[in-house]
């Protein structure tokens, strides 16, 4: 006897109701990650917010983690899926270390592994709801790549996830150049994060910047950006709205 038949939307990918194990939608999410290559390695930035829909539920989420000796992983999207990915990578690095053969997985290898994991989950219609940024240095070679929840991956001199693609990449295309100094790199990343803070609803003003070089990973202590809200354009935001698109 059916009291309240649960209705599936027309365009859903839901199988039978008993498929209660598949990811349907994200719950606790992180917003953009931005990263760039600089003279000595990779710089990556992400804020520390974990949103539960429109509520800012968690304010100290570390969305960037070192992987092995040579890599740094940043994630946006579902936080629990990110934690699951860290568990996968933990096992990967463990087995790599257990070989005890002097070899170690570099950022290129870790990125490839992550791409395969994400694609495989997409194939099973049970995705890990993340956009990942993987950066690192091995034997002097810098590497920076990204992979999305359906397995789309590429490497570039600068990458971003989510809103970062819309707001940060254009800034980076204009101002990034080879062999940025550490200070210039941080300044450029902060510029991107500040724009995101002003314009991304889910951004919070508590961020970390991580650096990875041949010598290893350093993740900064959380800090906030100085903001300026006295721009005249912010004063009367509805002015000129009538008749504008």
């Amino acid at each position, binding site marked *: 006897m059916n009291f309240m038949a649960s209705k599936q939307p027309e365009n*859903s990918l839901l199988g039978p109701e008993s498929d209660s194990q598949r990811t349907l*939608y*994200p719950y606790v999410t992180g917003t953009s990650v931005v990263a760039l290559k600089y003279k000595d390695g990779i710089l990556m930035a992400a804020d520390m917010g974990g949103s539960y829909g429109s509520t800012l539920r968690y304010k100290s989420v570390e969305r960037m983690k070192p992987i092995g000796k040579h890599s740094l992983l940043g994630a946006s999207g579902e936080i629990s899926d990110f934690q699951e990915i860290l568990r996968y990578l933990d096992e990967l690095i463990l087995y790599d270390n257990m070989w005890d053969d002097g070899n170690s997985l570099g950022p290129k290898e870790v990125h490839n592994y992550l791409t395969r994991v994400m694609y495989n989950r*997409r*194939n099973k219609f049970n995705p890990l709801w993340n956009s990942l940024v993987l950066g690192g240095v091995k034997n002097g070679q810098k590497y920076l790549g990204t992979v999305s929840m*359906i*397995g789309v991956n590429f490497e570039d001199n600068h990458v971003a996830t989510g809103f970062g693609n819309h707001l940060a990449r254009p800034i980076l295309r204009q101002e990034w150049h080879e062999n940025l100094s550490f200070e210039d790199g941080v300044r450029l990343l902060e510029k991107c994060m500040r724009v995101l803070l002003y314009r991304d609803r889910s951004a919070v003003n508590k961020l970390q910047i991580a650096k990875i070089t041949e010598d290893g990973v350093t993740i900064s202590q959380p800090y906030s950006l100085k903001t300026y809200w006295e721009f005249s354009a912010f004063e009367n935001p509805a002015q000129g709205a009538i008749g504008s698109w």
Partner: protein
Amino acid sequence: MPKEQANWSPYDNNGGSCVAVAGADYCVIAADTRMSTGYNILTRDYSKICKLADKCVMASSGFQADVKALQKHLAARHLIYQHQHNKQMSCPAMAQLLSNTLYYKRFFPYYSFNVLGGLDNEGKGCVFTYDAVGSYEKVGYSSQGSGSTLIMPFLDNQLKSPSPLLLPARDAVTPLAEAEAIDLVKTVFASASERDIYTGDKLEIVVINADGIRREYMDLRKD
């Protein structure tokens, strides 16, 4: 009001165009290097061309994750073939393998639009063109991807292919010289970049002939 559901598609179109032209003793395979999603450009420097065997190169556009998986699959199968037969796969053999691989996933397709180019066992240029589920044909030239609707008619006009209805069957490989074919390909991409928003940034051209494989690049519009 019914609850709003997040939904996701297992497919995405990362854009781009591919072209291949077969000559008497060469084959030109070209593709742009832009990777996009929606109205965004993800990167301006991504190669869509993959060398599958010594004389066989594939260019694919569509959903990048599927393209990558397909390339890896074919490369793995080629390695096995080499172990078992102690030789490289010929272009026609790879063509059949690609078709079978695509049809294998007929009910959850690789969203990949491919052109295969290379030299056959006699050293003559050959081009094979595919749809996403493996339907294929040996042709003298072809284009696939977001710019194919702009490129194909122009190639038809310039390469004056004989009618496939003629008897005896005429060969579709172009009588053009290698340098002329490369020039044509450059022209075709420059034109496609003007009107197709997903084509642009840079053009990668791979040329296969008796001397081996060589690569060339040309800048395209970045807008």
